[in-house]
């Protein structure tokens, strides 16, 4: 393997890794705030990407605004999901299975809606800096990808600060750990839950707009992203924001380097196999402390 | 009297937290042995280790001379070691009768293939189990609710179902985890009568409880405090022991 090929792999792995990490981050946010694994996270991303695409190409909105539309669309979907899917399930005694099936249904719904509207074609969302790329040791990384990494890192740090130092962040955490206690001290628990999903939705939407220019938007991308994001989240310990990014980057790098030795068609097989192995061998992740056996 | 169960130097820690340190005691055959202690003393952990839900970090559990520390829950069950749970674990979507039939699981031999192909042995096993279940229902006073879903019963009756299910599986050593919590005083009296019957049938009982009235039926009681056995004896002996009084009495 030449140096160029190696560096190319590492760059690709890093970029993908941050995407998986962002999805994993969204999953971690929802899990931390509501104790629910959100099988729709990748589809929040899909919607974010689609919304940004439509804003940019059909409404002619400038790029930054289109991106914001994507993020907001994600947040809005998060709100809808909480009200239409999660809240009714809560009321009817939600078991882990019900939440899983309901969010899976939501994932399929978004995917089906995109299929209906766009068909099976993929669409290209314009990236930051267009198609320009930077050369590193003869390998190229798109400017957009660099921005992706920068923005993701900023978001992770921001999230950590939010949960650790703001009252709202701490209230959201408290509401999920101890419902009665939180109610007693005046935390609006239902509102915290809504905010959790909105925040998770926005994370998803952000991931969507960041990844769309690199892989193109197509109706089936949701579930695969969710699974990879889930792998990232577990690797990182399921509740830690830094952990999800760390897990994502690890996954992205392994995936990337593995493709070099095996054909690229097996990329997803490798990622899925890694997910299964992680769940079996180290469900508490590499960084997390307390294990949770997923149900 | 020989020891049905021997707990030898059992220690356990979770991470840095030592929950049990060098616990030693034995349960004599045919006796009712009690285990009491304040909350956090390590009773649940000890119980889980004895019943196979947890592997101790150190020490051994001996059952009638055989070391069973590495045996699975199922293996212990087949050896006659049956436990109940602090929150009664009934099969909620099965009827009471079906719960008891389930208790007879170990007495059957048919597997998946024979079941699929409807071998006669399958039906015979079920019929025999049903007969036993009906009998046990009567013994435990559950005939009135025998066709009701176990999950819909009030807590007291669910406890009874769990106990009946434990009894039907022909245990040698019955480990009861807080069997009286949530029961009315009539129900506790009924419980004591049932336990008495079980002892008469030769079943050894290990009892964990906060209920001092219930503990009266024990011939010997061990007191667990901060992971160690600090005293043992009959109820009256313990009540006179200043160390026990200081560490824990009453609740």
């Amino acid at each position, binding site marked *: 393997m030449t140096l160029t090929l190696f560096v190319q792999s590492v760059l690709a792995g890093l970029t993908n890794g941050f995407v998986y990490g962002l999805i994993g981050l969204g999953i971690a946010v929802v899990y931390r705030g509501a104790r629910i694994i959100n099988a729709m996270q990748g589809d929040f991303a899909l919607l974010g990407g689609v919304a940004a695409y439509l804003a940019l190409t059909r409404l002619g909105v400038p790029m930054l605004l289109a991106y914001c539309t994507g993020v907001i669309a994600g947040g809005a979907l998060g709100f809808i999901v909480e009200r239409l899917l999660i809240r009714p399930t809560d009321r009817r005694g939600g078991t882990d299975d019900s939440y899983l099936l309901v969010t*899976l249904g939501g994932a399929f719904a978004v995917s089906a809606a995109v299929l209906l509207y766009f068909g099976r074609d993929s669409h290209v969302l314009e990236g930051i800096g267009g198609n320009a790329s930077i050369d590193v040791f003869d390998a190229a990384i798109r400017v957009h990808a660099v921005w992706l990494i920068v923005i993701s890192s900023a978001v992770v740090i921001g999230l950590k600060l939010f949960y650790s130092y703001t009252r709202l962040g701490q209230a959201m955490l408290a509401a999920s750990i101890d419902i009665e206690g939180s109610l007693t001290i005046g935390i609006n628990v239902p509102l915290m839950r809504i905010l959790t999903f909105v925040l998770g939705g926005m994370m998803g939407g952000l991931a969507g707009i960041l990844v769309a220019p690199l892989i193109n938007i197509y109706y089936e991308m949701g579930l695969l992203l969710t699974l990879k994001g889930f792998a990232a989240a577990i690797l990182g310990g399921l509740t830690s924001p830094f952990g999800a990014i760390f897990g994502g980057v690890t996954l992205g790098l392994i995936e990337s380097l593995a493709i070099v030795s095996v054909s690229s068609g097996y990329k997803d097989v490798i990622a899925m196999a890694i997910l299964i192995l992680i769940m079996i061998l180290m469900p508490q992740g590499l960084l997390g402390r307390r294990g949770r056996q997923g149900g | 009297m020989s020891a049905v169960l021997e707990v030898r130097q059992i220690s356990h820690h979770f991470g840095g937290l030592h929950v049990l340190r060098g616990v030693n005691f034995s349960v004599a055959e045919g006796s009712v042995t009690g285990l009491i202690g304040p909350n956090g003393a390590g009773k649940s952990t000890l119980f889980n280790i004895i019943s196979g839900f947890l592997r101790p970090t150190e020490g051994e559990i001996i059952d009638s001379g055989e070391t069973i520390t590495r045996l699975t829950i199922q293996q212990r069950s087949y050896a006659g070691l049956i436990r109940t749970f602090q929150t009664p674990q*009934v099969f909620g979507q*099965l009827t009471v009768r079906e719960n008891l039939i389930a208790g007879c699981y170990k007495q059957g031999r*048919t597997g998946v293939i024979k079941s699929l*192909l409807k071998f006669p042995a399958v039906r015979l096993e079920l019929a025999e189990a049903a007969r036993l279940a009906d009998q046990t229902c009567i013994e435990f006073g559950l005939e009135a609710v025998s*066709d009701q879903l176990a999950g819909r019963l009030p807590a007291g009756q669910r406890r009874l179902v769990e106990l009946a299910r434990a009894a039907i599986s022909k245990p040698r050593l019955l480990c009861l985890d807080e069997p009286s919590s949530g029961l009315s005083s009539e129900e506790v009296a009924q419980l004591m009568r049932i336990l008495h019957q079980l002892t008469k049938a030769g079943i050894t009982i290990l009892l964990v409880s906060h209920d001092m009235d219930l503990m009266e039926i024990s011939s010997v009681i061990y007191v667990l405090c901060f992971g160690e056995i600090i005293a043992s004896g009959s109820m009256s002996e313990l009540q006179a022991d200043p160390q026990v009084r200081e560490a824990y009495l009453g609740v």
Partner: protein
Amino acid sequence: MSAWSRLSGPLLKYAGVAFLVAAWAIVPVVAGRSTVDILVFTALYTIAGLGVAFLLGQCGIVSLAQSVFFGIGAYSTAYGVTVLGWPATVSMVTGVTLSGFIAAAVGIPVLRLSGYFLALATLALAIIGQVLFLEWDWLTGGTLGIGGITPISLFGYSLNTPFRFYYFVWPIVIVVIWLHYNLLQSRTGIAMRAMRDAPSAAAVIGVNIARLKVKIFVLSAVLGSFAGSLFAHYVSFVSVDSFGVDRAINFLLIAVLGGVRSIAGTVLGAFFVTSAPHLLSQFGDVHALLFAALLIVAVIYLPGGFGGAIAQAWRKLSGESRVAENVGGVRRP
């Protein structure tokens, strides 16, 4: 209780069954080819769907991996018959055996997981299967698929039309249903339900939970594979599109919509999932959205699915006081 009211319950039940059988037998004679075609697919998906429903309803396991075994069955038949020249039965048995082994090999580590982890692991398996079916084109023909699969031949009579296949496949469905009932009404059936309701207590009554889960998973895979083989013989051409995550979702949908405890419900669920795309085809791919919406509605509002509703009606009709799960008979006062 008068003689009539004591008789009327079971009598109505038998009359109902007789009517259903007659109706079933008549349909291909009076209905068009596409209707019969839909009913054949309903039968095939019922078989595969029953595997998923059983796993979910009796053991509480959400499996999205059924598409993989469906594909293994289909490709084993396709490859065996067209490339290796094996007879249909041999190819089918190979497929079933292969699926069984893979289910066991994968199941032993994976089924130790619980809840979300397990369900998502099965989804991951579905994706792995989908990709491998595509990549291993030396075996599966990739996107080009395998064609020219000869129809099943029974005593020289070739089942090469929907009409003929209909009368072949539905008795098979009945046999599969019979097997299911047998399993439900057995010591193993009780053990499964015990495992579903209270795993700790199930362990204490002596159930080897890990082993039982694997056995049922293998059983489910065998059903999926068998259905896949029959499918291949029916459609005579198979390609990767039929064995992906979409298919896995459909099987799960059949189970959930139909009501996981109800066999009649599973049949209805299979019928719905098969016919809806047809009926809605003029609107494009809208059935996917409909299915997703129905899955959500069923999970939230209809925990018993269609089947739950039917079970209640059936009960009222025949005067029983308990649902089918009751083993050892209901004790009459």
